[in-house]
């Protein structure tokens, strides 16, 4: 292993964050899970480089983004960005790319999708805090005080020894590259307080086209749609898993994501499959989603297959 290199983010865009697969064993103290919003794109970026699956990578929301590498490494970009330039020359996402010291990478805000992942060989190497590399903006925890990463900040990575680091030039097969402008059906497993909602509300919930509101962020995606309000009994706060769908009294669903609070007191109609949440993380305010009834055993099987593919099971 050579001495480390750094990458300097000249233009990080509105919300660039270091992310890994999130924290484990901290929620009972009130720390959010955090971690990559779209694990599909995140895990591909690491896989393309032969990294361990949980290596810290950059999650870049929108753009424009520009950075400069001070030494050689290999990188991979996955997720939303399409028009990407290395030293002014167009390069493709979803594949491994060699970079040399002094190379400049940039991309414009993508036309569709929301988050781009930039991974480097061996991962970014913050000083391994006990909670891991994930940043949480709302909570102000993790490296860089939770972020977002400011312009001109530098991130360290471990250097490469070319001879010791031969690796096939991998690219993601086209069939695994999602289109982020396809209609999205979110499969909901009914649970929690599902049975406390009126049949009238539940019918409306599954028949409504919802719009992602401008308040959507890493914590939650609040939706707006033509659903009725619903009277609710008082609920003792309880733990809120990834993908839980809260229904406040106004009847407008709120989907809880990676930076959600650990507990919550709104009734929940059920929980989405993780894979659908990853897809949702690439949808923007203004885009439409619908709910459909899901089967938990199927979702679990699909997710296990997914994690097995990425060496996480």
């Amino acid at each position, binding site marked *: 292993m050579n001495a480390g290199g750094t990458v300097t983010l000249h233009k990080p865009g509105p919300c660039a964050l270091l992310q890994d697969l999130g924290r484990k064993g901290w929620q009972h103290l*009130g720390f959010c899970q955090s971690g990559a919003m779209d694990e599909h794109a995140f895990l591909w970026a690491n896989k393309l480089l032969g990294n361990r699956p949980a290596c810290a990578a950059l999650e870049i929301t929108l753009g424009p983004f520009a950075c400069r590498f001070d030494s050689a490494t290999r990188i991979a970009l996955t997720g939303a960005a399409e028009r990407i330039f290395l030293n002014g020359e167009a390069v493709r996402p979803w594949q491994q790319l060699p970079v040399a010291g002094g190379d400049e990478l940039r991309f414009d805000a993508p036309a569709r999708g929301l988050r781009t992942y930039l991974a480097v060989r061996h991962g970014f190497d913050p000083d391994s805090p006990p909670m891991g590399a994930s940043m949480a903006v709302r909570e102000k*925890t993790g490296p860089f005080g939770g972020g977002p990463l400011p312009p001109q900040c530098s991130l360290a990575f471990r250097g490469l020894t070319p001879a010791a680091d031969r690796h096939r030039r991998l690219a993601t097969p086209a069939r695994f590259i999602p289109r982020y402008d396809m209609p999205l059906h979110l499969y909901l497993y009914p649970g929690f307080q599902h049975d406390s909602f009126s049949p009238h509300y539940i019918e409306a919930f599954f028949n409504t086209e919802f719009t992602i509101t401008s308040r959507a962020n890493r914590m939650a995606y609040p939706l707006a749609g033509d659903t009725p309000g619903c009277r609710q009994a008082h609920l003792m706060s309880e733990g809120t898993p990834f993908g839980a769908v809260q229904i406040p009294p106004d009847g407008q669903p709120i989907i809880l994501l990676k930076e959600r*609070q650990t507990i919550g007191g709104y009734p929940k109609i059920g929980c989405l499959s*993780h894979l659908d949440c990853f897809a949702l993380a690439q949808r923007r305010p203004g885009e439409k989603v619908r709910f459909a009834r899901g089967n*938990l055993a199927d979702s679990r099987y699909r997710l296990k297959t997914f994690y097995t593919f990425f060496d*996480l099971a």
Partner: protein
Amino acid sequence: MTPAGNAFSISQVCEDAVIVHFRYQRIPAPELVRAIAACRRQLIAELPGLIDDCVASYASLLIYYAFTRIPVEDFIEKITASINTALCAAEERPPATTAVEVPTYYSAETGPDLARLAALKEIDVHRLIQLHSQTPYTVYAIGFAPGFAYMGFVDALLAAPRLDKPRKAVTRGSVGIADRQTGIYPSDSPGGWNIIGRTPLDIFTAAAGGRDNCLLKVGDSVIFKPIDRGEFIRLGGKLS
């Protein structure tokens, strides 16, 4: 001996989590919350490597588990046994309770809602302080922000709804009331609770540190001890 068959129920909620709801009458008793905390400890000790996170809150336990390593039916069987054992043990010999004393400076300068709340309840400020500090509370949950403990239940006379408009900044250490709960802000943050005083204690020093730096945990017993301005400052409290 086994606890009553309907002492709790377990539901699958998503691919990698199950929730345990414990039965209670009207409001969960402190003994139940302590028994749930004991269940949590038992699960983590008995099933290492299978439990990723385990969040106790009031009468529930949300368990995140390593779903790729064990079929859900087997996992539920294991935790059922574990919870039964822990509940029985708690029934025979109540788990030791950690008692925490929280020195608190109740005043206009540290409690912007103190006078308003007293006026609203038609009691004088001293009576309000006495009512808030005379009974020990139980930590029912930790959430909202790292280290923020929800404690209950305050005297019905002190119950107060959250502010209509949450404050943009509540000072760290602030002691507040919302409905029949009381809590302490572990760090400067926005918040909508009625603030009646401030403690000089560090509730939570673990922004990026160890897991053991949280003063309070679910099941603990907390009593507020009124202190004056001088003692507040002597204990490291800051006025601003």
